[in-house]
């Protein structure tokens, strides 16, 4: 279990424009986000001595960023080959790396030309090697197709409805209206959702997140040091990474997963809450990994915000809106802000906890949950100010 409660903090954040076509190299996007995070913290490039990032063979290794921005002596670099499940795990890893003395000031980043370059949602290798030989030959190829299979299970088991999915899409879009970073800012109605084109039943276009070009970075250092820096520290109170049995041979594969009506969240909930010394009722707002609408429902259930099977009704009736009891994805989420593979959730959490979210600011935010991952494995953090 993560045992470093409030000992490490996020002291700086940085992000590029989010777009469909950056016209830039992924390396330059990574470097820009990292430089902005350093500047935000008040530190200098020369203070950086560690990096943790993740990629899907679509980004650049940390040493290339360190080289471009002129880090004199990186003492630690870790490039996870991973999906969005790692977006919180890299931050926890940064804290662990500092605790171990391997580095003192660690940049965590995710950079991608996710729309104009390699498109995660658009398709995969059609060669059908390895575990893919049992999926792709049947036309089961893309991540929307993968996750739709999970969603159907929940509908079968619990009667979850299209309108409950739509509630998430409509709510997150309404949050994006006031977010200048967001890729999609035009409000949508439930009828817009219902009329949205069916891509892979049960998923419509508006159930699926926005492939995005861009980068995000967060700077992690000790809480003690962060208190002397430019910005109000955001403390990493707790966190967890993991999943259950049979997490599969790759991120697509869930053939042997116990049941697609629940995901990784239920398996990390105990570690997460115990590490933070908190429970769901202590959380003011949450940024829940929403590569698809449905993934939010499994995580709310798995982490104990409601009982298993009750996630659909839970998101209805205004509870998750910015005026509700548990505002979710206050930036618009991956569905409306953009898909920087979940690290943009951490950016929004930090802005909300600093009181820096401008027209999006939720009043009196003291704790924010962030999650990362949708299927068999994932990570989550409890952040506080």
């Amino acid at each position, binding site marked *: 279990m993560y045992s470093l409660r409030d000992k490490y903090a996020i002291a700086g954040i940085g992000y590029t424009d989010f777009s469909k076509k950056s016209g830039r190299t992924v390396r330059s996007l990574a470097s820009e986000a990292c430089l902005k995070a350093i500047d935000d913290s008040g530190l200098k490039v020369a203070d950086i001595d560690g990096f943790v990032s993740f990629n899907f063979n679509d980004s650049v290794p940390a040493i290339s960023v360190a080289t471009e921005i002129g880090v004199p002596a990186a003492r630690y670099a870790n490039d996870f080959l991973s999906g969005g499940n790692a977006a919180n795990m890299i931050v926890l890893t940064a804290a662990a790396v500092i605790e171990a003395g391997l580095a003192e000031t660690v940049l965590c980043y995710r950079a991608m030309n996710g729309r104009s370059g390699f498109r995660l949602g658009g398709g995969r290798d*059609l060669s*059908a090697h390895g575990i893919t030989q049992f999926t792709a030959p049947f*036309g089961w190829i893309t991540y929307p*197709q993968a996750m*739709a*299979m999970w969603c*159907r299970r929940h509908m079968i088991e619990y009667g979850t409805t299209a309108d409950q999915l739509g509630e998430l899409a409509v709510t997150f879009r309404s949050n994006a209206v006031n977010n200048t970073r967001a890729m999609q800012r035009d409000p949508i109605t439930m009828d817009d959702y219902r009329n949205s*084109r069916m891509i892979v039943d049960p998923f419509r276009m508006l159930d699926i997140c926005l492939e995005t070009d861009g980068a995000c970075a967060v700077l992690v250092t000790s809480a003690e040091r962060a208190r002397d820096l430019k910005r109000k520290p955001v403390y990493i109170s707790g966190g967890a990474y993991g999943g259950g049995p049979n997490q599969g041979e790759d991120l697509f594969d869930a053939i*042997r997963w116990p049941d*697609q009506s629940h995901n990784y969240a239920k398996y990390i909930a105990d570690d997460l809450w115990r590490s933070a010394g908190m429970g769901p009722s202590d959380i003011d707002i949450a940024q829940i990994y929403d590569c698809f609408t449905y993934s939010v429902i499994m995580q709310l259930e798995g982490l104990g915000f409601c009982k298993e099977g009750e996630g659909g009704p839970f998101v209805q009736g205004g509870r998750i809106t910015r005026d509700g009891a548990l505002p979710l994805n206050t930036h618009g989420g991956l569905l409306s802000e953009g898909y920087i593979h979940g690290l943009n959730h951490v950016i929004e959490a930090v802005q909300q906890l600093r009181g820096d979210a401008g027209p999006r600011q939720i009043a009196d935010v003291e704790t924010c949950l962030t999650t990362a991952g949708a299927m068999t494995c994932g990570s989550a953090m409890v952040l506080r100010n």
Partner: protein
Amino acid sequence: MTYNKPLPAENVETKPFWDACRQGKLTLQRCTNCGHHRFPPTYFCSKCNSAEHEWIESKGLGRVFSWIVVRHPVPRDVYAADVPYVVALIALDEGVRIPSNIVGIEPEKVTAGMRVRVTFRQVTPEITLPLFEPVPEQQ
């Protein structure tokens, strides 16, 4: 016309499965140490870690555990003529799940728990795919 869809690239662990499909048989690994059925093929049994196993022929009967209806073809040029098509996870009676297509039924009529049976479709001289079709409930 050349078959342009993904073809399984068999390896040393999966070759017996695809060889059997070519002969119209759906086969699974059975651990000879603990009796556990497993799919997809692996070298070690995840229950007892034994590498000893035999290939057994499945009865080819199961139920629809979950399914999707693909309406937007990806890649478009490969699947445009096939949509809508059904991909399902089928829970075989032997206790394992297998992904496949449900054929011989309108996509809108597929239901949870529907009884299905394997049917084979040769797509190239080397590759035969195990697909599934509805059968009466008593089978």
